[in-house]
């Protein structure tokens, strides 16, 4: 895969390009945002209590309005970006690594180990993930680290199943047999041949899952079972603003919009990458029209 041509392809698709820019912006906010806004995100400012948005006479952190304690919404969003994205990225990486490894093992194992792994994923799959997370988080408490682990576990099956299905297909290809004839062992096959072929698929799933996990975290925080104050995520901001819905709609609206736009960008980019990264699919997309 040549990166320069991929970049050119990205430029040619306007929608995907905008999505990529938004994601980079949000990641930038998560990286440096909290330091940029500094005390503006936590300090009280009673003169700005529930100030409406688009009042440009105040500082820029108040442009999207202010909350009941007079803190600028934009500042709060910047502060929450790090926690929100951090949790999502960490749990995606965690489930991708563990799920991918388990899936490759399950695909290569012809014995009971593979079966145990698959039954385990069945158990996780057979119950609504949000309910499972609710219960576990209530037991363990809503610390960000717990949230990461719980979300990662609920998303494990996707990676395990995908990786296993890919391995089962790759395992039948002739180059695997050719390597085995040369005396290659399971570890050589897994690392040299199988992992490099499975990884791109896992990354695509990961980018789709990033959106999913972020939405799940927001929902949990919204229900009060996720991150607890004074930590803050976008989902928690929506929940906190809910009681002011009649008087100050902006408290809930803006953080929710940030969730939506970020999830949307991740989904758009993932579906674009699925086509752009796979030349056969790219051709197939153009080839199915009927005269």
């Amino acid at each position, binding site marked *: 895969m040549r990166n320069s041509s991929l970049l050119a392809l990205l430029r040619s698709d306007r929608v995907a390009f905008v999505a990529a820019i938004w994601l980079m912006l949000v990641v930038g906010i998560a990286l440096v945002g909290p330091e940029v806004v500094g005390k503006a995100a936590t300090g009280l400012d009673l003169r700005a209590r529930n100030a409406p948005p688009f009042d440009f006479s105040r500082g820029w952190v108040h442009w999207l309005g202010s909350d009941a304690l007079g803190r600028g919404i934009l500042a709060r969003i910047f502060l929450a970006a790090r926690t929100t994205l951090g949790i999502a990225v960490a749990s995606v990486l965690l489930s991708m690594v563990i799920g991918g490894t388990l899936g490759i093992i399950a695909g290569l194992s012809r014995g009971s180990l593979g079966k145990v792994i698959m039954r385990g994923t069945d158990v996780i799959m057979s119950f609504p993930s949000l309910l499972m997370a609710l219960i576990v988080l209530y037991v363990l408490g809503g610390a960000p680290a717990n949230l990461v682990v719980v979300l990662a576990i609920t998303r494990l099956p996707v990676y395990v199943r995908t990786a296993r299905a890919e391995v089962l297909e790759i395992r039948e290809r002739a180059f695997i*047999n050719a390597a085995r004839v040369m*005396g290659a062992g399971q570890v050589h096959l897994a690392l040299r041949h199988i992992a490099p072929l499975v990884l791109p698929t896992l990354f695509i799933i990961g980018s789709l899952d990033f959106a999913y996990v972020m939405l799940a975290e927001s929902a949990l925080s919204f229900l009060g079972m996720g991150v607890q104050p004074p930590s803050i995520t976008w989902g928690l901001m929506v929940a906190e603003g809910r009681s002011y819905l009649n008087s100050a709609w902006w408290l809930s609206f803006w953080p929710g919009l940030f969730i939506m736009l970020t999830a949307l960008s991740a989904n758009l980019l993932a579906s674009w990458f699925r086509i752009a990264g796979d030349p056969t699919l790219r051709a197939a997309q153009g080839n199915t029209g009927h005269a």
Partner: protein
Amino acid sequence: MHEPKPLLEIDRLSVDFPAPDGLFSAVRDVSITIAPSEALAIIGESGSGKSVTANAVMGLLDAPPARVHGDVRFEGRSLFSMPDRQRRDLWGRRIAMVFQDPLTHLNPVYPVGWQVTEVCRIHGMARTEADRRAMELLDRVGIPDVRRRMGDFPHEFSGGQRQRVMIAMAMALSPDLLIADEPTTALDVTVQAQILDLLRDLRTESGMALMMITHDLGVAADIAERVVVMRRGEIVEEGALDRVFAAPVHPYTRQLLTDRSEEYRSARPGVAPAVLELDRVGVHYGTFEAVRDVTVTLRKGEILGIVGESGSGKSSLASAILKLRRPSSGNIRFHGRDIYALGREEETGFHRGVQAIFQDPFSSLNPRMTVLKVISEPWLLHRDVLPRDRWRGRAAELLDMVGLTESDLDKYPAEFSGGQRQRIAIARALALEPEVIVCDEAVSALDMTVQAQVITLLADLRTRLGLSYVFIAHDLTLIRKFADHVLVMKAGDVVEQGVAEEVFSRPSALYTRQLIASSPVPDPRRQAERRTARRRTLVHASTAP
């Protein structure tokens, strides 16, 4: 002589597809006519444009992206400019088509009976009558016990039967023209022979014209009256079957028809030492017995050909030899030692001494590894063979040996054609300087001319390096040209084995005779004789697979 009015005229047809670097022109300026009841074969290798031509006639190319120019006329009326409704009225009723792979071309979720009646129903036949007609047709094409099997689904039939169903569907409304796109390519030779006979009989009965697309000169010799030879989108030669086969004009046709049988075989080694010995080897999959009691010896410098149709157990036997699947009985010895009871060092020796080349050139190389990585993988696994700083140089030598160049080392497999990929696979197999190479259908997926080149290469390497081959193929002609010793397998059993020349000239088993009679040869006269012979050896439709 009076020229009959043509049934179908393909008039200066061109088809282009968009490609990364401009347009790829798949068919260029092709004109073909077919008279009523004529049998025409379009011969060509992959990329010749023969299938694109057939699909363009039926309007089955997706446009866009395909750009079609020129015209196709049926009984003088242009198919390209007539309204969709009228064209649809011709499809299935006047012009019908049979495809290469019957499993994917039949809809998996409908019973076969329904799929045959569908043609009749589309063209306005009443339900009960359509049902009766479907039953009659399926019976005619040789589906046994039709009344019961009408409700069965495509996956419940064998490959040959599925193609019979496709043919029944095509024949439903007695079309004037049948277009058959490689209809027998996916089938075993004995089944292929039966399908060809069926097509021939149906043509005699109904007087329809046939346009047969094939890569197999033998098939063309069997069924056609006139042939068109295509290459890279253009017609290179056209004429009556006998004339083209007896006196080809174009160099490409001549190249296709060249028989190299004598070029490959070197003098058979006398009593060279045994390298590989199989002793009463059996292979099971669960309770299914894939291979029974195979005993054979491969000597140094010898080529052992194993021939059989699908399900004969030949590939299972290869897996056992390559230590990919443990035999359930008997033993296999490499230089006298049981390969499934080797010490650590002997194990390494075995993995160096025995290599493999597999069938599918597209899956035999890891798509994410450069050629250099592919060829040096054996050295990575056997680190004492070659120091890392000499990998590149040695890989270049090996590439040179198989007819590629050093500049190819940094390319990825996707940049090579099927034949070139098989050459790379051969280079990889040579990296550890093996004594035995197992070729499991190693050239079956390649075009005829490419096949000939790879076989020449293998024959040459044997002479230069003293290699022995286990050469597995379904193609009788290949084995005949190449092998010293032959093993004929059927349903897991060895039905006959011996010195190649003797087995082929004086076959003792009935099955070997059937195989030989079914395997088409690119010679119309000999093919006609064989057809008569096979009518005698083969039991027809009633016991068809």
